[in-house]
């Protein structure tokens, strides 16, 4: 049978753990890297930025530049991307009542991949600058096509997911076709596909911030609705909810979140599926908790993954998508096994 009591963390403690994880990940990332910054001076330089706190720091002008213009924007961007992907994954999982759904589903990743490929292949030197916009637009277009193809009449969530798979395969086929006709762009496209935060700037973070705030806010505000949806469409309707409308709103917000992340980072898999699961294991299935905790934990997880990506084979970098999968999968399996509900 099944264990009778979930060993859940109380909500307040779960928030504490997730927030501490995020802060620890950010600090660790700020202190580690190719340039050897003095840890104490780095900390005082960071604390000095807090309003009304004035601390002398021994960091040189160059070290300050490394910290504030290279590491910090990368940490902030990583946190944004990780949080966005995790919230989008959790939101999709709630909407589709399916724990295997990821932020790249519904044609989102395939659309972004096609958009980026088209920009790199056909826009020449202007292409690199256009990749974020093209990926963003492609991701949203992929979801829109999948949604319009799948949401016919009163059809259920399975139809929508299957339409997403079909649209994804179609877009990937187009991308492959475009790519095999211009193999000289292969490496550039491929390195984009594997995801990276190298070259992160404050400007990138500022560009996706408005989309991030809006999309995350909308998804978080629908946590309770996703809990109601978990009892099925018919019972949700008998409780006064409009399942179709809720699904449309949450899917649109999740698509915007995932597209914002993809635009600045390329395709980073695994985060959107692993993080919400870890959170569920610790805090239970209610989306009113799972969504905000996924935001914090996903941000911390991606900062850590990116820190590994830029340090393990330093001065070269690993694609962050490779790190999230290489590190994430064993951790995920370990968590699954160590907290598994013992079912027969």
């Amino acid at each position, binding site marked *: *049978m*099944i*264990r*009778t*009591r*979930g060993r859940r963390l109380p909500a307040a403690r779960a928030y504490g753990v997730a927030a501490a994880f995020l802060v620890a990940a950010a600090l660790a990332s700020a202190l580690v890297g190719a340039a050897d910054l003095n840890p104490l001076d780095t900390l005082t330089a960071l604390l000095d930025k807090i309003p009304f706190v004035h601390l002398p720091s021994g960091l040189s002008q160059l070290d300050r530049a490394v910290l504030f213009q290279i590491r910090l924007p990368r940490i902030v961007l990583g946190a944004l991307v990780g949080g966005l992907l995790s919230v989008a994954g959790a939101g999709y999982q709630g909407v589709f009542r399916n724990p295997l759904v990821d932020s790249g589903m519904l044609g989102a990743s395939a659309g972004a991949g096609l958009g980026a490929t088209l920009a790199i292949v056909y826009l020449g030197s202007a292409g690199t600058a256009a990749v974020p916009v093209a990926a963003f637009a492609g991701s949203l277009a992929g979801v829109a096509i999948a949604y319009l193809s799948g949401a016919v009449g009163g059809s259920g969530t399975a139809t929508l997911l299957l339409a997403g798979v079909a649209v994804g395969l179609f877009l990937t086929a187009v991308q492959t076709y475009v790519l095999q006709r211009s193999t000289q762009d292969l490496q550039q496209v491929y390195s984009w596909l594997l995801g990276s935060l190298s070259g992160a700037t404050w400007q990138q973070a500022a560009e996706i911030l408005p989309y991030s705030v809006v999309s995350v806010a909308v998804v978080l*505000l629908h946590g*309770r609705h996703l*809990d*109601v949806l*978990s*009892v*099925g469409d*018919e*019972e949700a*309707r*008998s*409780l*006064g*909810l*409009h399942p179709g409308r809720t699904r449309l709103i949450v899917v649109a917000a999740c698509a915007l979140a995932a597209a914002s992340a993809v635009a600045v980072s390329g395709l980073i898999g695994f985060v959107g599926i692993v993080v919400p699961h870890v959170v*569920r294991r610790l805090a*239970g*299935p*209610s989306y*009113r908790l799972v969504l905000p905790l996924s935001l914090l934990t996903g941000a911390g997880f991606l900062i850590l993954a990116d820190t590994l990506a830029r340090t393990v084979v330093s001065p070269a970098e690993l694609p962050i998508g490779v790190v999230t999968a290489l590190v994430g999968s064993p951790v995920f399996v370990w968590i699954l096994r160590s907290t598994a*509900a013992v079912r027969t």
Partner: protein
Amino acid sequence: MSAIAIDDLAVDLDRVQILHAVSCSVPSGGWLALIGPNGAGKTTLLRAVAGLLPHRGSIRIDHTDLGQLRGRGRARLIAYVPQIPVLPPDLTVEEYVLLGRTPHLGYLGSPGRSDRAKAADASRRLDVTRFARRRLGSLSGGERQRVRLARALAQEPRVLLLDEPTSDLDLGHQQQVLELVDDLRRSQGVTVVCTLHDLTQASQYAGHLVLLHEGKVEAAGAPAAVLTEDLIARVYAARVTVSADASGHPVVTPVRERPPAATRSAVPRPPGGRLPGG
């Protein structure tokens, strides 16, 4: 005053007409049991009253046409417990019962202290407080049914719709659940409409029966008027006798005309011989 008045109701599912010109009513605080063979349209009628199916004709709840009620407004009047409700296995009983407060919350609202108090009160009435923190996946059949009723009660409805509330329960738990529903009806003035397969239970608990057959009302009224041997034989193609229990409710007993085969196999087989008449 009738809480529910159904007039000339017709429902199509997948272009097949399931209900034809169904009319019936229940007084406020009454208990109506929908009976009839499999496929007669009982669940369809219940779902139509729950506002989950498009229909022709009229369904009025407390003099308001169902078609004029939307979403939360309807859900504040009517609670619906399907035959096989979805119970997310990792949700706790407490969280699940609290979902019953959904129709009373604003779009972006979240359950407050009074909502929690009402959910706790519903849990107390159905005696599920003891296992409030257990996961739904760990409950027994009887516990699950009580938890479903607690969620419906937390909704504070005027009308409670129950689809086969006693299916997959043993006899004792069946009676326990029906008594609980009757208590709720008496103490809260809730009007109950349910589908039931057990005709004797229908006669013992519901004051009004509607016998559906092939999507039409075959008979309606007090149990004694509906549960007749002839009618049951015709509609169910079943052989029964109808007697009365101590309080005068019809008791429907299945009858087997031929002697059952089991009694023959119980006769010791003669050594080396054939069974007589075998």
